[in-house]
Structures are given as C-alpha cells and as structure tokens.
C-alpha cells in the first residue's frame, strides 16, 4: 500500500518540510534555540527521505525494464496533463544519489551558515523534492514544472549565501538555464499538439518527421547542454560554482549537472532517435572538446573551486560521449557499454565532485580563501583531512579501485570500438585529469607550511569527518563493487538501446 505512494512521499515530504521551515523561520538570531531546532528538523527531514529511498532501492526489481512505483492521476484535465511519476533503472540510481547527498549537505552547512539558517535549509529541502520530481516525472509538463521550479531555490542559495560576485553569478546561472529550457517547452508543446497529451511515452511512440526531429533535438540539446554543461555553453558553471556556498556547489555538481545527462537519456534519445543519430557526430565532437580542451583549462586555474568546476565539465564530457557513441559502434558488440559507462560516470561524478567541493569547503571555512596560492603544506596541520582529499583526488583522476575509474573505463572501451581516435582523445583525460588534480593536491597539501594561517589550521571536527568518511566509503564501494549499481541499470538500458535503434520516421 505504502509502496504505491513511495515516490510521492519522496518528492513532497522534503518540500513540505522546507515550507514548514520557511514559515516558522529561525527566530530572533541564528544561535537561538529555534534556529538549532531548524537545523535538526532539516537533518531529520533529509534523513527520513533517505531512509524512504533505501526502501525504494530494496523494493526495486532489477529484472523489470519498465517503470516501477508508478503513480498516475489527472492533474490539469484541460491540457490532458497527468501527475504521472515512476522510476526505472536509469532514474532510480539518480534519486538515490539525490537523497544520499542532501543530508550530507545539511550536515556540512550545520554551523558554517551564519545568516538565516532556516531559509538556507528550507531552500535545500525544497530543492531536494524538486530534483527527485525531475527524476521521476513521466509527464512532460510535470517534468518541465519540476525542472524550472528547481532554479528558484538554487537562484536564492547562490544569491543569498554566495561569495562576493554572487549576484552576477546567480543571475547568469538563472538566465542561462532559463533560456536553455524555454525552447524545450516549445518542443514539448509541439509534441503535445501531435499526441494530445504530455505523456512521455506518448511522445516516444508518436512518429515524427526528420525535420521536426532535428528541430526538437536541437531544442532539447540547448536545454540539456546548458545543464550538463557542454562546451561552449558551460561558462555559467565556473561562476556559479565559485560564488555558491559549499552546499550549493555540492548540489550543483553532484545532482543538477546530472539532469542534463538524464534529459538526454530520458527525452532526446527515445523521443527523437533519428534526430539524435543525425547529430551524434556533433555530440561526440563537443564531448571530446569538453574532455580535452576543458582539461587544459582546468590545469591553469588558480582557484580551487574553479578547477573542480572545470574538471566537472571535462568529466561530464564522458557522460555525453558515452551516450552518443552507440551509432558509431556495430550493434552486436555491446553498444550498451557506452551508455552504462555514462550512467555509472554520472553517479560516480556525483559522489566525487560533491566530496571535492566539500573538501574545499572545509578549507574555506578555516581560511576564507579558495586560492591555491594561499595554501601549501596543509597535510602537516590537517593530516586526516589530507588523507581524505588525496583519496578523492585520486578518484577524480580515475584511479582504479575508485568509482571514478569504472565509468571512464567503460566509456573509453566503448569509444575504442567506435573509433581509435575517439578513444585516444578520451584517454587523454587519464593524463590531464591526473595532472590538474594531483598538481593542485601537491600545491595545496604538500610541501612546507606556506604561511602562518596554514600553520594555525585545525584538523577535521567530528561533523566534517563523518561527512567525508561516508563519501569516501561510497566512492570506494562503487569503485570496487559496481555490480549492484550496474545490475540496477542493465535491463532498462538494454530496453532503451532497442528503443533507440528503431527509427521513428
């Protein structure tokens, strides 16, 4: 019985909690008992949501390729819009990632947020519900509502609790992503007029002419490419990441970027397979540019957050590369490998980039600087922290045994089957990724203690230790034993590959 409403619970429970926090507020000042209570409430809401998502995982049937936990009720009858949600092997892992990261973000912001904590935590709770909504919506309009509504809390998170240039960064973030999405809306309305409803499966089953497919693909591409972000529409990301508070950066990198990749898998590929095939060359080229060129850009960064932001763009290049390889690979030689690699890479990047931003946040809370030049020899004063940061950096560089390796390796194998040069260029990430990450580690953590501020640093407190330890365990778990994750996705991906292979002309 409860299972029938599990997804709705996951979506609405954090949103209702967030609205509650917003209405109650944090009382007289940020240290008041009421403000403390708000923190505890936020943690309770996110933890309960995580528990509920564990229930979702346990009840999830790996053998079922279609949608599970489906709920369907009429919403706006005049437009034939349904409240239609469900999960399959592609969305379920992303929902788990969302519910897993959000409590960590709440813990990470526990006392580093000095102003208006109730609003801060409320924004994250509402954001969590909306993100889960995006991953589970099966109605186009419902998807769009969640997709756009998500911008509102993030806009406020960056704008209120961000750094010095936060207003510029958050406006750029909002307008960029808004501009990307509105054309997707036009595509949705076009499809609605063709099918008489917003049902995504209706969109997938209707046959569409080639010109329309190309246009729809481009409309989707703009929306998702901005979100991923792909070169050359990535410029909002470094600004947003640098100015966002730690929690905002973590959510942005770990989950919101995944929505672009998710959009390609859920919408572009199955709805316009022929359009996708037509543009797959372009997509591969853009992905490889992201991997190679952005890798070099990352190498030159002086700001740690910016470096990780660029490294995110490069890593997300693997996601789009993996997804659009399948037309270059002969059908029977495991074309699904690239897709599986892309999906694993999304989860893994969520964990690693989140952890990297948390590491920078730990240092920033102490030093109020993100500049690499201000650091040096941190390992001497913060040995435990340094151990964690080295682990995550290794994972970011794709060291075998960590989650970063699994997805990248799968995508490189798949690209090898497609074309030697694709693989060659993709594999440069192993060098570039190692170069920019480890060079940063060397300059920040090792060497002599650079200055008095570094000498005064104190090691992790219990709260920070717990957060990083949980993430470290999960990075290693996915790296050493990816089978449960891959099993979850396999049947759905197989079915998706068959679906894409069929022309819809």
């Amino acid at each position, binding site marked *: 019985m409860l299972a029938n409403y599990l997804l709705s619970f996951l979506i609405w429970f954090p949103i209702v909690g967030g609205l509650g926090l917003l209405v109650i507020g944090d009382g007289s000042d940020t240290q008041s008992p009421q403000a403390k209570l708000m923190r505890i409430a936020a943690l309770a809401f996110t933890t309960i949501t995580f528990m509920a998502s564990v229930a979702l995982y346990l009840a999830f049937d790996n053998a079922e390729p279609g949608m599970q936990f489906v709920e369907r009720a009429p919403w706006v009858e005049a*437009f034939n819009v349904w409240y239609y949600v469900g999960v399959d092997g592609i969305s379920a892992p992303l929902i788990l990632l969302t519910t897993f990261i959000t409590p960590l973000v709440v813990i990470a912001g526990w006392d580093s947020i000095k102003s208006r904590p109730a609003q801060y935590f409320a924004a994250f709770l509402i954001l969590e519900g909306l993100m889960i909504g995006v991953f589970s919506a099966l109605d186009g309009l419902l998807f769009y509502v969640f997709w756009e509504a998500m911008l509102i809390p993030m806009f406020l998170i960056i704008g*209120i609790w961000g750094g010095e240039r936060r207003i510029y960064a958050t406006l750029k973030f909002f307008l960029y992503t808004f501009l990307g999405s509105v054309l997707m*809306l036009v595509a949705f309305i*076009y499809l609605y007029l063709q099918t008489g409803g917003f049902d995504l499966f209706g969109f997938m089953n209707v046959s569409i002419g080639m010109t329309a497919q190309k246009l729809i693909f481009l409309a989707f591409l703009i929306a998702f490419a901005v979100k991923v972000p792909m070169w050359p529409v990535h410029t909002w990301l470094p600004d947003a990441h640098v100015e966002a508070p730690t929690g905002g950066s973590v959510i942005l990198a770990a989950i919101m970027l995944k929505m672009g990749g998710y959009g390609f898998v859920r919408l572009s590929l199955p709805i316009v397979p022929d359009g996708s095939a037509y543009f797959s060359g372009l997509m591969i080229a853009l992905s490889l540019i992201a991997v190679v060129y952005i890798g070099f850009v990352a190498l030159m960064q002086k700001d740690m957050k910016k470096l990780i932001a660029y490294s995110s763009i490069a890593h997300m290049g693997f996601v789009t590369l993996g997804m659009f390889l399948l037309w270059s690979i002969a059908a029977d030689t495991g074309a699904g490998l690239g897709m599986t690699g892309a999906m694993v890479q999304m989860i893994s990047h969520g964990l690693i980039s989140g952890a990297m931003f948390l590491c920078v946040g730990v240092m920033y809370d102490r030093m109020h600087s993100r500049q690499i030049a201000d650091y040096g020899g941190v390992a001497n004063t913060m040995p435990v922290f340094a151990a964690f940061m080295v682990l995550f950096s290794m994972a970011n560089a794709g060291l075998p045994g960590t989650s970063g390796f699994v997805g990248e390796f799968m995508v490189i194998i798949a690209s090898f089957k497609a074309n030697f040069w694709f693989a060659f260029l993709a594999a440069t990430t192993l060098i570039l990724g190692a170069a920019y990450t480890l060079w940063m580690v060397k300059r920040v953590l090792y060497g002599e203690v650079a200055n008095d501020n570094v000498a005064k640093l104190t090691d992790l407190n219990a709260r920070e230790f717990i957060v990083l330890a949980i993430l470290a365990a999960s990075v290693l778990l996915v790296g050493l034993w990816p089978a449960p994750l891959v099993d979850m996705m396999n049947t759905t991906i197989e079915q998706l590959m068959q679906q894409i292979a069929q022309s819809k002309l």
Partner: protein
Amino acid sequence: MNLMDYMAAAPEMTLLGLICVVMIADLFVENENRVITFWLSMASLLVTGVALYATAPEARTVVFYGAYVSDPLSQVLKLGAVALVGVSFLYARDYLRANDLHKGEYYLLGLFGLLGMMIMMSANSLLPMYLGLETLALSMYALVAIDRHNVTSAESAMKYFVLGAIASGALLYGISWVYGVTGSLQFHEIAAAISADPSLNNLPLWFGLAFLIVGIAFKFGAVPFHMWLPDVYQGARTPVTVYLATAPKLAALALLFRVLVDGLGGLHETWSTMIMFIAVLSILAGNFIAIAQTNIKRMLGYSTISHVGFILLAVYTGTQEGYAAALFYTLTYVVAAAGAFGIVILLSRRGYDAELLSDFKGLNARSPWFALMMLFLMFSMAGVPPFVGFLSKLYVISAVLEIGGTGLAVMMVLASVIGAYYYLRVIWYMYFEQNEDQAVLQASTETRLVLSLNSIAVLALGIVPGWLLTLCIQVIA
C-alpha cells in the same frame, strides 16, 4: 421590454442605486470617520457580487432591444472586476488614511468606474459599449488626479485625459464607419450583415476597423498606443494605480472580445494581422524598456504592456483555445498585478511613497513573509513554474503553435527570458541586498491577510489550475 430585461441588468442597477446611497451617506461622514464610506462601498460590492451570482443566466440573454447581453463571459468578467475593485479598495484604505487622502471620492469614483466596466462587459452594441467606456474613463481621469496638490499626479491625469480623449475620438470615428457600412450598431447584426454580403468586407470597413483597433489598443495600453500607461502608473498615487492596473484590463478584454470577435469576427483575417503587429511590438518593447526602469510602478507598467502583448497574441489566433487562453491569461495576470501593487502600497507609509526598485532592498530582513509573497508574484509574472503565470503563458503559446505560429512561439519564450531579468532584479534587491531602512511594515490585519491570500493564489492557481481553465473554456464555448 419586460421584466426579464431588467433582471438581466439587475446587478448594474443595484450598483447604481447603492452608489447613490454611498454618495449621499458620504456627505454626512466626518473626515475622521471616512472608514464608514469604505465599509459602505465594500458592502455595495458585496451586494453587487451577490446580485451577479443570483442573476447568473443559464444561457446568453440579449435584452433591451439587443443593446445589452448577459452571458457567462460577462458574468465571469464582472465577478472578477467586483472582486478586484474590492481588493484595491482594501489595499488603498490604509495608505489613503496615512497620507490624508482618505476622501469618499476615491471609493465613489472607483464604484462609478466599476459600473462603467460592467456596462462594457455586457454591451451588445457599440453605443452602450462606448457609454460604459466613457463612464470608466472619466472616473479614472478623476481618480488619477485625486491628489490635486501633487504635481506629478496632476500632470499624468492631464496626459491621460488628453490622450484618452483622442483614443475615444478614434473609437467613435471607427464606430461611425462601421455603422455606415453595415447599417447597425449591434454586434450580432454587424456580424450577420458581413456574412450575408461578403462584399462589405472591403476597404471602407477595414478603415473603420483600423480606428476601432486604435481605440482598443489604447485602452489596453498596447504599443504603439502605450505612451500614457507608464506615466499614469507612475504619476497616480499607488492606490489609484492598483485600481487602474487590475479591473479595467478585464473591461478592455470585454471590449476586445465584443467588438472584434462578436461583431467583426468575419474580418478575422484583416484584424489578426494588425493585432499581431501590435502584440509583437508590445511584448518586445514592454520587456526591453522595463529593464531600464528604476521606478517599480513604471517597471510594472512596462511589464503590463508586455503581458498585454501575450493577451493580444492569444486573441490573434482566432480560435476557441486562443480566446480561452486570453481570458485565462487576463484573469490570472490581474490577480498577480493586484498583489504586486498591493505590496508596493504595503512598503509605503506616512509621508513616504515606496516607488523605487531600491525600496525593495533588504525586504527579506524586514519582513521575510512579504518578501516571499513578492517572490511568488514576481516569478509568476516571469512565467516560471509552478506559479500560474507559467500556465497562462503555456496556454497562449500552445494556442499560437496550434495555428502554426512557431516563430511567434519562439519569440514569446525568448521574450520571457528577457522579461525574467527585471523580475529577478526585484527578488535580487529583496534577498541579496541590505538596506538601512528597517522600518516595520504598517498594515492592518485584514490587509495583510488578503494580500497574503492574493499572493498565495498565484501559487495555488499554478498547482490547481483545472477549475479556472475549465471555466474559461466553458465561458468561451
């Protein structure tokens, strides 16, 4: 003429009688007890609303020898107008009292304006339409000038009057041409004449049509007949602006529907092109010029112009969906506009008019609740889901795409992105900036309550829009 005729016009007659009562009662009210006039006006609105509800026709009823019509469309618009006028009065009361402007004339002129709107909404002939329009317009000219010691108010009233008179002249001139060609003033007879003799659909009638469209575009405030609108919005005292910006838009929509759709529906091909140009210009000019504003009332004025563009594009389609979309858009837009101007009033206090965008700086620190309410309203106007402004834009875009207007649809969504910037700026000022002004907001409990409900309505309607959409579709059908 029989009793049924009077039944159909009962709400208007009731309102007229009540206005007379309020007017006489107001003579005996001392200045410090002016609130009595307020409550009497509110009671009149309530009675009028009940009368509207009680006399709701089951079907279209045409009375007074075809001059007057009572149908579901007029009922919905009138109920909306009555409610909006009531809300405006409530928002206005505290401000007027605090600024020594609490005169009975504000309420009386407001009620007379409402009477004019209701006549417009029910007019089935060009002449009552014109009479209603002038009743409304004259009340509004006087309302704008209500603070006669204020130079900007007087200036904007003068501007409004002169330009309004020209527009009325254009409208009358257009009416005379249409009458000359078709031989009738009644909308259904005009329509019948055109369909009976297609040769009428020719240059003389188009010439008259052009003047009618000028008049309608002026009343809506559509580009290039928009010049008065930002000046009047800014120059009028805010309680007058909240009145001007809300209910009269419903009357303008009635004017548009009755004249162009009911009367000159046969000329759709001709007027749709004219409307399209006006609409596209309104959307673009409204959104671009709004970016440069520093005065919130002026900015909302330009934002109104761009919203009017959306309404006109919905009508441009000439389909049932388009008309329903126009109705839905207008109804939801005026709700958001009432809330936005309500919050501007809320920020004002004795001797201090909150008029600048910078007055919103740091509102989140002064009042997190009303900052949140303004956030709802701004995101709704920007067309961001889950607020209702998104659905109304969606409906219009869908109607335009349905007749193959892909280019127009893309223009509309891109213009929304440009528009988002200036709405976001209000939110940015409220949340991201600090301000020295820490004055506590002063407002009565009922104003706070209604303003909150007003703002929450844009969220609630966005989440549960079904009933209003269905209503709009039924009314148009």
